[in-house]
């Protein structure tokens, strides 16, 4: 089954939306970004885009669906270190490395664009505003990883799940993928467990606690946030690390 969360009709280009959250773009920048992100192809769920040990071969842009960065222990246990949502570009400067140190795989079915290293180099050279947005994106990826370390290392089970939902909500909202406080969350409980460092049993209990408390509703891969202030309070969520208002503040 290949199922992709459909964007709302007339949904904006998520790549452009995300960059515009970080920096002001010109019409010329937008035309170029529309052009390079037009050639999408569909990848099924649980497919590797990049494998640990591969030689880097350009970068991937996620246009629909959700992917992740992850590493595995020898016994197969997996830790997910990042989610990639529509508008996210994987590893801007990865061409500088000789081998990948982690894998990037789809969680749900995705629409992706593959950009050659030369294309990325040309964008960075000829479109300074886009380059600025992409570099801010890289800093935000690092800030998000720090927040995830805090999440996995120090928060309680339910707060970890709540924090993850708060973050995904913010990130999808900025690229126009949230409607009436609902968004597609095509993740298994095992995916959530591998993201939060919990067992699937603890994930189930935490989801039940959030449901019973009237904070969320999760059914048919659709997460509806019923009480966002409560969810944020449970998570101890502060959106500052996502730097999403920086374009207007600059």
């Amino acid at each position, binding site marked *: 089954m290949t199922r992709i969360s459909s964007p709302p009709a007339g949904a904006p280009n998520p790549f452009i939306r995300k960059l515009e959250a970080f920096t002001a773009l010109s019409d010329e920048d937008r035309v170029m970004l529309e052009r390079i992100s037009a050639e999408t192809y569909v990848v099924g769920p649980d497919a590797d885009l990049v494998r640990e040990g591969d030689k880097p071969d350009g970068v991937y842009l996620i246009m629909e669906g959700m992917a992740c960065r992850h590493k595995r222990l020898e016994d197969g*246990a997996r830790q997910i270190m990042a989610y990639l949502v529509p508008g996210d570009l994987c590893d801007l400067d990865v061409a500088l490395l000789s081998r990948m140190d982690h894998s990037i795989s789809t969680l749900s079915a995705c629409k992706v664009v593959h950009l050659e290293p030369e294309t990325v180099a040309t964008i960075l050279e000829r479109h300074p505003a886009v380059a600025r947005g992409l570099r801010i994106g890289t800093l935000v990826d690092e800030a998000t990883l720090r927040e995830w370390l805090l999440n996995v290392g120090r928060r309680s089970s339910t707060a970890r799940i709540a924090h993850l939902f708060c973050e995904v909500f913010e990130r999808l909202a900025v690229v126009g993928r949230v409607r009436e406080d609902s968004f597609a969350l095509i993740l298994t409980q095992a995916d959530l467990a591998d993201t939060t460092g919990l067992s699937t*049993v603890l994930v189930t*209990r935490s989801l039940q606690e959030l449901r019973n408390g009237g904070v969320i509703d999760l059914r048919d891969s659709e997460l509806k946030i019923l009480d966002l202030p409560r969810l944020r309070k449970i998570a101890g969520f502060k959106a500052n690390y996502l730097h999403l208002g920086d374009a207007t503040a600059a």
Partner: protein
Amino acid sequence: MNLRLQPVQVATGSDDQESRLVFASGLLIAILVCLSAQHEAEAGKWYLEVGFGRIHDVAAPLFSDLDEAQAWIRDQLPDPS
């Protein structure tokens, strides 16, 4: 190694309460909890809620019954010989 099981109710903060304290040579080594209906397909299986000593920090599978859980726990313990 002989294990002794003692029925107990555990406050897990969920519907999962029916539990067993697991003793090895008189020492508490694990707490197993039976999964409630909220776990759907996994309901009725046994979950290693907490392990001590040799089974602390070990990723345990879910067990279909208490015999399977005890066999797994024995495998983690040092050989008595």
